[in-house]
């Protein structure tokens, strides 16, 4: 419930993460990739904020920037009451157990020369004073929790299939009972039955320890299941953010509409008869975004103004944010208590 007692654990304001592009013999800086270009959102304590959007739109960069795995270009990030947007990396170390990440690419995050047991145990070695026996027991529990057979403890990552490797990464992230976890496509490599187990597990842990998640995924059905609220990103910006039920029942932004219509239905007859909005054209390059609205090159509802003026990201109904000129006439309801959309509050 989004009641007044909800307070943000994470608060992000106008976050930008631009990567320089170098070219030529002298490796001169010739431009920048605006991977994340001014996003603002809160993640409330105990909630799951889903972050969805097209490949390359900046979801991972956003998640990593929020955890300060990068030195960000600009913006403010507050986690658990501490402003960390500009904190030097060395000073962030003590914050690390609080905030963890489960990565999209399990391969890159697992040391091939360590056994599974040691991989999961490493954060316990670094940040706890548990005895060896306690650590081993904890590792066993974590392996159970993520659906890995304990007998695999002495094996190396290469002996596991992609999905099994991802489970190792999740066990490791859970080891220190963090408060805030950025899950970057954590279930993308898992088959559906294990996805369900992991999602149920994430939900159990959330309830038990009051965990807060930023859940990055391209699986809109799963996000519908797990998220409290959902943010939709396109080309470095959030185009819509809304409570889950409102977003799925009544998407506001034309991109959200296209996105939802593209979701594959697990029903062969339906899947072949449904009329989809197949977006034309390519996602523009984040080093050279279009003028005006970022979506104007592909938007089925594009208007003249869209090619000139960037739409403002604002709360158009209580709890519902979007950046689109179609809603320019909608009264800014931020702060007011409009009755007819009260449903947006209770989601």
């Amino acid at each position, binding site marked *: 419930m989004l009641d007044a007692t909800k307070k943000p654990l994470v608060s992000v304001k106008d976050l930008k993460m631009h990567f320089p592009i170098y070219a030529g013999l002298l490796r001169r800086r010739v431009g920048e990739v605006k991977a994340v270009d001014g996003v603002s959102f809160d993640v409330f304590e105990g909630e799951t904020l889903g972050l*969805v959007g097209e490949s*390359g739109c900046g979801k991972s960069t956003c998640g990593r920037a929020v955890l300060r795995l990068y030195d960000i270009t600009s913006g403010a990030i507050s986690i658990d009451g501490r402003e960390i947007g500009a904190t030097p990396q060395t000073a962030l170390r003590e914050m690390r157990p609080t905030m963890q990440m489960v990565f999209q690419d399990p391969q890159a995050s697992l040391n091939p020369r360590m056994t599974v047991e040691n991989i999961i145990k490493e954060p316990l070695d670094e940040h706890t004073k548990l005895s060896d026996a306690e650590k081993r027991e904890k590792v066993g529990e974590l392996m159970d929790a993520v659906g890995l057979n304990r007998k695999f403890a002495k094996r190396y990552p290469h002996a596991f*299939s*992609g*999905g099994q490797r991802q489970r190792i990464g999740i066990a490791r992230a859970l080891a220190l009972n963090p408060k805030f976890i950025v899950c970057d496509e954590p279930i993308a490599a898992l088959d*559906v039955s294990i996805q*369900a187990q992991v999602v*149920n597990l994430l939900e159990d842990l959330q309830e038990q320890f009051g965990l807060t998640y930023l859940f990055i995924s*391209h699986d809109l059905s799963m996000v519908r299941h797990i998220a409290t609220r959902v943010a939709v990103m396109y080309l470095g910006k959030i185009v819509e953010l809304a409570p889950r039920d409102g977003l799925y029942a009544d998407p506001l932004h034309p991109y959200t509409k296209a996105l939802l219509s593209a*979701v594959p239905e697990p029903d062969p007859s339906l899947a072949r008869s449904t009329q989809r909005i197949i977006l034309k054209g390519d996602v523009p390059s984040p080093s050279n975004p279009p003028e005006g609205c970022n979506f104007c090159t592909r938007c089925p509802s594009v208007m003249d103004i869209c090619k000139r003026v960037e739409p403002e990201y604002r709360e158009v109904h209580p709890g519902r944010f979007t950046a689109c000129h179609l809603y320019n006439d909608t009264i800014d309801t931020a702060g007011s208590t409009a009755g007819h959309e009260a449903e947006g509050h209770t989601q």
Partner: protein
Amino acid sequence: MPDGALPVLNVRDLKTVFQTRGGEVHAVNDVSFSLKPGELLGVVGESGSGKSVTMMSLLGLLPSPPADVRGGTVMFDGKDLLCVTQEELRSVRGGKIGFVFQDPMTSLNPVYQVGFQIMEPLRKHMGMTKRQATARAQELLELVGIPDAKRRLNDYPHQFSGGMRQRVMIAIALACDPQVLIADEPTTALDVTIQAQILELMKELRDKLGMAVIWITHDLGVIAGIADRVMVMYGGQVVEHAPVKELFNDPQHPYTRALLKTIPKIHGGRAARLTIIEGQPPMMTGAPTACPFRDRCDVAFDRCAAENPPRYDLGEGHDAACFFDARTGGPRDA
């Protein structure tokens, strides 16, 4: 196998074992399937069920040791790929059979520009000049929806997002107009709008080139949308195989039935909790002597622990490896 047209690829009784310090892992057990020209075979199954190892085995991509392809035949183009020379195999791979694998072993090389990596098979298998290959490479990148294709040919893999890297890999697989494309979870990390585009592209290429496709995915929604036939794997074996509508409307194997219940939906009611399949995947040590699903199966009975069920032909191209007859609610052969 109820196959009318001559299959372009025919795999019989494929068997692959890994030697590990903990003993043998029987990753693929007597897997058989065939593929007709222009047909799209979907392969689903739990992580570790042997989907990737099956495909890597038939392409000779597994290092030996630890892998040992112990038996079977893989007929392609009049030859058994398990018997041909390494050289012949190399010319088939990336040429007449294109592949996109989730395994990093066969993914992009970080030290070469993406353009170079797309051009390599074009020059090697198609004998193109540098200029022709460059033009084709740009075309292929555009085909898979990478913006700014010309400039990005000079970029290195790390400069692409995960999803873009996967699209590059699809471009490489399609480079030589393959007869068979083997795609191992190629759209897993992709956003649905791009996935929808790629699935459209796949159907188009298949119609245009008569290319047959093996599409491995855990997304039953994708399978529902594009597959002609579906093969469900569990514990290194094919447990069910059917035309796509049959599989979704009338699943016969207990694993398939459970699997279909675990997927969340985008429409309709939202379950408070997802259904899961209790228990853990089998260890696969030693050759199977019992049904691999028996520990997790809600209709298991004595025979399931004593014998490994064969694939029972259920008619209409549908078969299932289970002693329990879901249609009668009793044991088979009783």
